[in-house]
């Protein structure tokens, strides 16, 4: 968007824009996330396609006004289909100097900056480490800056409300939201309604926040700061009913759905960890679905209780992030050995060690595939978008129960907290999960295998006549007795690997997106799907032939993956790690794939990938063809 500078005021007009990216930034106590979420929900209801990226500081309440305390929320909303929260904000709303300093470098010249001038006092500047006032020192000269005394105006607007001065000041985020609602011509009703639900028991807060929102809206309309109002028309969606969903929420709902589809109770064992805890929170609300949530004493108890629950006939699921997976490794191996269903949700974050708890990364692929002692094959899945977490959760339960194996779901912080419009499924349209328990003692042996899946029977304690023992010591083929026989161990190791390979029966062939005759193929997995897709679309618009595949199944791989890789002279693998899928692809398919990697705790920018694609295209042209 390119509105003109407010200095050259001319009659106000309405402009239509295709897409806009807004970033809200302030103290983690400023209500930035709530403001962003409200803008998101309103835009969703308005009918825009959208994608969001909340960016939390690591500290719950870092010292107010300091750089580490800055919390951000970015949303791209659009009249067309979009895949990412936007590379660069068109608009920055900064509630204090720290928020301005942290975020200004991400803006292109001439972008819009809205600042709350009330928080640019001497003390505020000192807290943010500013030697001079950025509102006066020329830092903002390249931008269209709107200086609004947001706190002051909010307090004035709330004069009639009987709440404390401090509480009034806390409503300033909704004044700012009101300004943006006017600027982008959004309806206020969804947020006004939300106040009524949210503050049901505190009518004075309903009044205060509603007044703040309306005051912001009226101010923007009356103050003649802005020369244009903007319109981002609704996007064209496939018919259906939609809601906004975040990845962790979708994952939790997918697990509940899998419980319904299989008729088995869901058991979720978890220990609180960022960014996975929201799954525990969400599931703990759904006890009326028979969901059992168990907040365990540690990561190990979280996974072992889930294995115990699976053993007794529930859907055993554990959820965590990378550090927790490290602790669960031995127990996951027990599930490999005793061949029980288990779903492990790894909501990846920056590492190693404690790393960047609130930032995103996808560097646990190797850990999921290989991070346990000995030969330990497991099934690994990765969702591509927040909404996709729902489908992947169901798929994970389906595979775990059908093949009697542990299944990893590799989500990440970006998917977990990012939101997108989600076309709602109907329970009746989802295929049932058929679960077979062994009931008859006839022809029963604990490790007798199904010919198609190689799964052993799921024989629940409590079933008369099936009393048997399982455990972590190597088991004899068919009978499951303790066995130290060398040939049996060799056989069983190969059997467990073969069983995981059989899951390929569940994996649809990959569809290549983009140009069939391209020379460049991008291979992605997990959350970069949006950035990769947008980059491929943009590159093709610029006339470069490029193709794309995206892997949901990381073990086993789809059966046509090898053949596709060999069709393209140049294979690029963008990952938010230093080349993990890349290493697996090179090892398994002997293909000279190249990595596009970064580990900044942030998703790929579309422009970064477009640039890399252009570079490759140039190299290919220059050399005729790559060796």
């Amino acid at each position, binding site marked *: 968007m390119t509105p003109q500078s407010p200095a050259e005021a001319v009659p106000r007009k309405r402009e239509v824009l295709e897409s806009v990216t807004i970033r809200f930034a302030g103290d983690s106590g400023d209500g930035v996330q709530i403001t962003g979420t409200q803008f998101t*929900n309103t835009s*969703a*209801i308005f*009918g825009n396609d959208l994608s969001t990226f909340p960016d939390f500081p690591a500290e719950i309440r870092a010292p107010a006004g300091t750089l580490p305390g800055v919390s951000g929320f970015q949303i791209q909303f659009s009249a067309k289909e979009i895949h990412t929260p936007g590379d660069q904000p068109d608009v920055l709303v900064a509630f204090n100097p720290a928020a301005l300093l942290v975020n200004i470098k991400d803006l292109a010249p001439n972008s819009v900056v809205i600042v709350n001038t009330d928080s640019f006092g001497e003390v505020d500047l000192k807290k943010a480490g500013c030697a001079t006032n950025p509102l006066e020192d020329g830092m903002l000269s390249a931008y269209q800056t709107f200086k609004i005394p947001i706190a002051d105006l909010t307090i004035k607007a709330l004069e009639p409300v009987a709440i404390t001065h401090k509480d009034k000041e806390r409503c300033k985020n909704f004044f700012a939201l009101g300004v943006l609602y006017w600027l982008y011509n959004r309806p206020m009703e*969804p947020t006004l309604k939300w106040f009524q639900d949210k503050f049901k028991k505190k009518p004075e807060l309903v009044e205060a926040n509603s007044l703040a929102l309306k005051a912001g809206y009226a101010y923007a309309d009356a103050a003649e700061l802005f020369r244009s109002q903007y319109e981002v028309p609704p996007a064209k*969606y*496939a*018919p*259906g*009913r*939609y*809601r*906004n969903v975040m990845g962790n929420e979708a994952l939790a*709902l997918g697990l*509940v759905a899998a419980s*319904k589809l299989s008729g088995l109770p869901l058991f979720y*064992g978890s220990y609180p960890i960022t960014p996975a805890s929201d799954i525990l929170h969400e599931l703990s609300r*759904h*006890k*009326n*679905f*028979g*969901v*059992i949530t*168990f907040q*365990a*004493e*540690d990561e*190990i*108890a979280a996974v*072992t*209780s889930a*294995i*115990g*629950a*699976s*053993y*007794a*006939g529930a859907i055993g699921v554990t959820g965590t992030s990378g550090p927790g997976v490290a602790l669960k490794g*031995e*127990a996951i191996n*027990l599930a490999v050995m005793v061949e029980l269903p288990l779903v492990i949700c790894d909501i990846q974050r920056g590492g190693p060690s404690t790393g960047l708890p609130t930032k995103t990364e996808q560097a646990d692929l190797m850990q999921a595939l290989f991070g346990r002692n000995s030969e330990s094959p497991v099934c690994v899945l990765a969702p591509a978008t927040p909404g996709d977490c729902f489908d992947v959760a169901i798929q994970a339960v389906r595979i775990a129960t059908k093949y009697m194996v542990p299944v990893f779901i590799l989500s990440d912080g970006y998917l977990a907290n990012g939101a997108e419009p989600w076309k*709602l*499924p*109907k*329970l009746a349209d989802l295929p049932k999960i058929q679960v077979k328990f062994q009931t008859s003692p006839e022809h029963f042996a604990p490790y007798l295998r199904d010919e198609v899946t190689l799964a052993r029977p799921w024989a*629940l*304690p*409590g*079933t*008369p006549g099936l*009393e*048997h*023992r*399982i*455990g*972590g*010591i190597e088991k004899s083929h068919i009978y499951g*007795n*303790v066995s130290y026989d060398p040939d049996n161990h060799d056989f069983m190791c190969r059997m467990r690997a073969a069983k995981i390979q059989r899951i390929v029966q569940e994996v649809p062939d990959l569809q290549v997106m983009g140009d069939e005759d391209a020379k460049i193929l991008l291979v992605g997995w997990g959350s970069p799907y949006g950035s990769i897709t947008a980059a491929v679309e943009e590159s093709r618009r610029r006339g470069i032939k490029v193709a794309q595949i995206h892997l949901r199944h990381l073990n086993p791989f789809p059966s046509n993956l090898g053949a596709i890789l060999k069709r393209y002279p140049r294979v690029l693998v963008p990952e938010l790690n230093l080349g993990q899928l890349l290493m697996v692809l090179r090892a398994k398919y002997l293909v000279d794939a190249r990595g596009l990697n970064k580990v900044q705790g942030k998703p790929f920018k579309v422009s970064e990938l477009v640039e890399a694609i252009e570079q490759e295209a140039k190299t290919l042209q220059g050399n005729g063809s790559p060796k």
Partner: protein
Amino acid sequence: MSPETAPVKPAAPKYTKKDFQSDQEIRWCPGCGDYAILNAVQQVMPTLGIDREKFVFVSGIGCSSRFPYYMNTYGFHTIHGRAPAMATGVKLANPELEVWVVTGDGDGLSIGGNHLIHALRRNVDLKILLFNNRIYGLTKGQYSPTTELGKVNSKSAPFGVIDQPINPISLALAAEATFIARSVDIYPKHLMDIVRRVAAHKGSAFVEIYQNCNVFNDKAFVQVTEKEIRDDQNLSLEHGKPLIFGKQKDKGIRLNGLRPEVVKLGENGITEKDLVVHDEKNAALAYLLSRIGFPDFPTPLGIFRDETFPTLEQRTREQITSARAKLGEGDLDKLLYSGDVWEVK
């Protein structure tokens, strides 16, 4: 809260000890105390009137943890220290099962100490048998968290153990276990009585069983097992009865302020009335008793505590039931379509 009694099932098939013996060859060392414990458990099981398929024996790692392989019930030999957590999952998923945990001093108090504490405090209906031989047997003789200070026969402390040992009964009390007892491998009758009481208890039960490792730590409990001295060294805990011991039943435990002391009946006019009366419902007394033992006091054997509170699985079911009563049986479509939903035509 009134204690619940185990459901009586007259129709339950009659079992013999043999029905609880698996076909697996037992691989403990000859002379190991584990044989006696296995025998006691296998003798009690058929008398409980509970269907065999309801029993699940869960264990961790160590000599004791081979136990499930020898029981002809459901059995799960899991990983080191994690049996209480695994068993919690089993019990929560199916409260109808009778879940027993077999562990040792290394498995239960060292690597798995955390899980033990939390399984006990949550009052999950698990029957936890901890075989305490005060040594690591399966790894061949390192000292354990219950090995006595100064002990020099362990392989990993040839100059003597310098770690203060843990007191399993005190720990179980601190962790809020609702049933706590101590027995000895070579006292089959006592052990079987305790196993029966454990089976009847609803809630987290913890039994420390002194178990002799004749290979790596022989005679570790000689003061409670040696024929000549044991009557003067053992204190049998019986609910509602004064704490009397000794071959002649002539000694007792009296409280001097808050300090227990050994007194002789008949001396200085001391009678039974002066002695502490055991009360399984008094956790403070139980703690006091957990702190006494060899050499200044006799070693208490029997039930320290037996109280009944709602179990974790009961509370879990109650929450589910009340959530269903309040919100109705979960309806996925209703859940998905709640909140801000919009329609595109």
